[in-house]
């Protein structure tokens, strides 16, 4: 579904991503784990061309390396950005409407589906998104990204700053989504991510230091020491 070849991101002379090669099969959950500053967010932003990059990105058989961000999203690759970034000055309903900007004909149906998938949002349709709790904002951000009916969803640290109970809910929903779409999940919470993922990449200092089946990574001593707290 997604192939990344020799991806590099530089901010001036500083390398955020030195070299990344990734392959993601359809209808799988792949996770990219790594500590703070390893280059996880830069990788996702580079894939959708929200930052300058070098390298090749092939999505669904098409080379999207040079496509502008909005076009990549239209082509079916959606990103739930770090820090949720819901439109706090818009209502919950309007946020969903923004997500379906190029999907007018299916808006009503998808909105219904989203309120079923995220019942916490259903009671707050006309509320400004800025008044939602962190967990609700995360759910709204995911729902908003799904409104374009993407073939693949990339999630940047969905558990960041959320209460453990809510993290559980969010991860349950992500597992549920696997039935329909491909998912690339970035997490600091490596244990939770590897538990629901099929395959994992470990990012260190801007390059992949290790990759394997998620179950194998969970058992890997090196990974356990560095990312799973022993």
């Amino acid at each position: 579904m997604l192939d990344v070849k020799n991806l590099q991101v530089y901010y001036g002379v500083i390398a955020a991503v030195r070299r990344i090669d990734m392959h993601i099969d359809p209808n799988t959950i792949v996770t990219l784990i790594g500590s703070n500053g390893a280059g996880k967010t830069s990788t996702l932003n580079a894939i959708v061309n929200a930052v300058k990059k070098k390298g090749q990105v092939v999505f669904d058989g098409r080379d999207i390396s040079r496509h502008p961000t909005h076009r990549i999203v239209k082509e079916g690759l959606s990103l739930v950005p770090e820090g949720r970034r819901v439109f706090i000055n818009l209502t919950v309903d309007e946020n969903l409407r923004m997500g379906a900007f190029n999907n007018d004909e299916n808006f009503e149906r998808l909105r219904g589906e989203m309120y079923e998938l995220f019942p916490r949002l259903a009671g707050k349709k006309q509320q400004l998104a800025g008044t939602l709790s962190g967990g609700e904002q995360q759910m709204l951000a995911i729902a908003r990204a799904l409104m374009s009916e993407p073939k693949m969803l990339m999630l940047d640290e969905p558990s960041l700053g959320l209460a453990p109970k809510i993290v559980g809910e969010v991860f349950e929903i992500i597992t549920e989504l696997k039935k329909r779409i491909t998912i690339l999940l970035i997490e600091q919470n490596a244990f939770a991510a590897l538990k629901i993922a099929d395959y994992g990449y470990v990012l260190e200092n801007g390059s992949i230091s290790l990759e394997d089946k998620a179950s194998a990574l969970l058992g890997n001593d090196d990974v356990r020491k560095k990312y799973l707290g022993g």
Partner: protein
Amino acid sequence: MDFATFLQQLVNGASLGSMYALIAIGYTMVYGVLRLINFAHGDIMMVGAFLTYMATAAGLPFSLAVLIGILGSVIVGVLTDKIAYKPLRNAPKISLLITAIGISFFLENLFNVIFGGVPKAFSAPDYLTKVLHLGEIYLPVTVIIIPVVTVLILGGVLWVLYRTKYGMAIRALAFDIPTVKLMGVDADRIISIVFALGSALAAVGGVFYAVSYPSIDPLMGVIVGLKAFAAAVLGGIGSVTGAVIGGFILGFTEIFVVALFPELGGYKDAFAFFFLILVLLFRPTGIMGEDLERSRF
């Protein structure tokens, strides 16, 4: 001041305020999405007035001429963004501001070269220059038409912003441009819509100005533009309703200062800015302005 004079000045103030309001909406909307004070905006109003003048001089009917003025302003406004501002989207805001001042000088001088600096008489059709006598009050038809059209336009702008998909995108853009792109929306297209809308309103303001004063010159946009900017700040920059309120306040202030203290007539512009300073001292975000970082129109 007797009641008749008061009424007379009230309509005059509403008419002048409307012109400021129409131009202020453009300032405030562009600021809302780009955090740019588009100093060339006053000159877009001049462009609108001049193109309308040219079209009438060429013998076209007035309504068609106004349409040409509006369309021409929209094209100039959108091109300004595409050519001058778009390459600077990621540059420091001060570069953008200096560029805007450059565009302003460019437009003023371009029209000066083409048309010369001598003010031109603007001839409006008879139905706009008629004056109604209501008892002791003299009401030029324009003085009634201008505020009515302005309020209708404000309603239209608010309808676009709050009831249409593109208006929603403009509001979202004001908060977070990168995330709007993640919705599959071409942010630059939405920004063009903002410039088009603002320029169209400025052109209408320019035509109103030309009809009311009836003379135009290439520098007509400078002081009117500055006062419209003051109106936008007064009302709370980033707020469309605020821009209109600010415009009307400025219009009324100017007219009533002259009416009450005729000997201070020469200082009427100073009063507009004095009023601005006063409001900003007590309410730095302007009348309708909230947190500047969360402008909501």
